[in-house]
């Protein structure tokens, strides 16, 4: 349920360029323009899809929002406040409210941390709760991603679990502090197609229960259609189309969107 008066994340003319260094194999330093003057509003409570191919800038957008990267130009606003250059304490407060689910479940969990260690990490970092209440919060989080009974998973380690389970742990970790905004960066691209839909259902349920806002980054229009309220299509660092998911897919206006739709494997049956 999006609230048009309540913009939670706003990107204003954001640009980002990456410079590669000169090297023996790659010749002169090159500049890659990842994002060109992107402007975007994301409303509280919606699941917003950002669809594009590799190199389109979609992942960079997500990383900028969670402040793993800094924009070269432009402003980033969270709940009306300019967070483009925040540091220190303000940054830590921000981090409590904005989280990320990474693409590779095989690499986004510390192999030496048990499930409990990983999921409780945000609680420890922000000094939330004591050892008893933390256990309860971790339990609640694990339940919400379908890893039940949660206590059985507390002391397991990532290498003992499958990709889908690991990704669910990553989701539990992102949600344990009940953030307001979560970036999900291609959460199912490293998982089997048959598992993907289960993950989407989990995200959808969590969204309804906690009224979290999601930015769902994907290369699959079909996934975006299933999960998202609104979609933006990004191509070579620019937003080419933006609007309600079903509209974009039924009536694409930009040729690139049309190309994406045509290229999708069709289920002829």
């Amino acid at each position, binding site marked *: 349920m999006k609230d048009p008066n309540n913009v939670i994340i706003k990107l204003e003319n954001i640009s980002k360029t990456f410079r590669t260094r000169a090297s023996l*194999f*790659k010749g002169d330093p090159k500049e890659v323009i990842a994002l060109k003057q992107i402007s975007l509003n994301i409303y509280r409570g919606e699941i917003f899809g950002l669809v594009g*191919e*590799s190199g389109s800038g979609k992942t960079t957008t997500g990383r900028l929002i969670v402040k793993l990267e800094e924009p070269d130009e432009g402003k980033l606003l969270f709940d009306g406040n300019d967070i483009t250059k925040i540091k220190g304490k303000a940054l830590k407060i921000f981090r409590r409210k904005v989280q990320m689910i990474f693409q590779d479940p095989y690499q986004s969990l510390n192999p030496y941390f048990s499930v409990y260690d990983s999921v409780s990490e945000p609680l420890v970092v922000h000094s939330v709760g004591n050892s008893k209440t933390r256990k309860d919060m971790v339990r609640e989080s694990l339940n919400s991603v*379908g890893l039940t009974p949660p206590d059985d998973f507390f002391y397991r380690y990532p290498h003992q679990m*499958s*990709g*889908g389970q690991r990704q669910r742990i990553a989701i539990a970790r992102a949600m344990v502090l009940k953030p307001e905004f979560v970036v999900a960066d291609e959460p199912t691209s490293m998982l*089997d*197609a*048959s*598992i*993907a*839909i*289960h993950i989407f*259902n989990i995200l959808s349920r969590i969204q309804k229960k906690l009224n979290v806002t999601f930015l769902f980054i994907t*290369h*699959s*229009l*079909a*996934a975006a*259609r*299933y999960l998202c309220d609104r979609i933006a299509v990004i191509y070579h660092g620019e937003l080419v189309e933006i609007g309600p998911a079903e509209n974009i*897919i039924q009536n694409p206006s930009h040729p690139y969107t049309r*190309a*994406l*739709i*045509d*290229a*999708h*494997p*069709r*289920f*002829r*049956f």
Partner: protein
Amino acid sequence: MALLTVKNLSVGYHTRKGFLKSVQGVSFALDQGKSLGFVGESGCGKTTIGMALMGLLPNNASVTNGEILFEDQDLLKMSKKEIQQIRWKKIAMIFQAAMNALNPVHRVSDQIAEAILAHDADISIKTAMKQVESLFQLVGIPPDRMNDYPHHYSGGMKQRAIIAMALACHPSLIIADEPTTALDVIVQDQILSAIKDFQNKLNISVIFISHDIAVVADVCDTIGIMFAGQLVEYGRIEDVFYSPMHPYTQSLLSSYLTLNKDVVQLNAYLGKTPDLINPMTGCLFCERCTVAEATCSFRAPEWVKISPTHKALCSRCK
């Protein structure tokens, strides 16, 4: 006469925890010029089948049963030398993430030419390069990119180069293991068209392995659904897709996201991983199955012939 006939193939791996039965009793046949797809989740054994066909199983793997009849010769009974004669010349493979297998310090054209020369010592380098040129044309890489290095290529182009390498020695069978994973939708579409294209032009048989059922539907004539090392449903694409009989096939089809249809209700849940070291008696899908009966847990299912071109391994479908 079929190009490839596999009868009752069983392969396992010796691990520290025991003998893992990766493939159990798989049988299928493939004619020249036709394509067959294997679909299943990670660990179902589909990649192992591909490796067994190529004779590239790792040291801790053993074939415990079965025959692989390629052009009427049993590949499993051949010596290493004989298999080397067949590998790449008659059967070629496109591995998972193969595009990372290109050597970064050699030009792409050189690498493909090397593959040609390695298998045919009589050709001159000039002839080999000419072949490389025609291969590039076939897979759709512009001729002015031939002499570039791999890092100048995009992901899609690298994958095409890999396909060209597989085609280099004019094999009769190509095994493609997840050739489009890690590629974008548009590039994936192009690669799949390229595969269909050369399959028609050169009358090559293709075995396509993927976890994504829609990709297989696009390319293949026949499809085999795998679960826990077993083939659970097998038949022509139309048969399997219009009337999926095995509950696992049904769940796969219903969980796939499309642009046009809505997802039908999910009827299988993420059960526990089937134990391949000590598989349970009875049907291996039983725990996850929504229509399982009491007998399914101790009586192993048998093949049910639904039509001359469609069969399913399930006691419940009659």
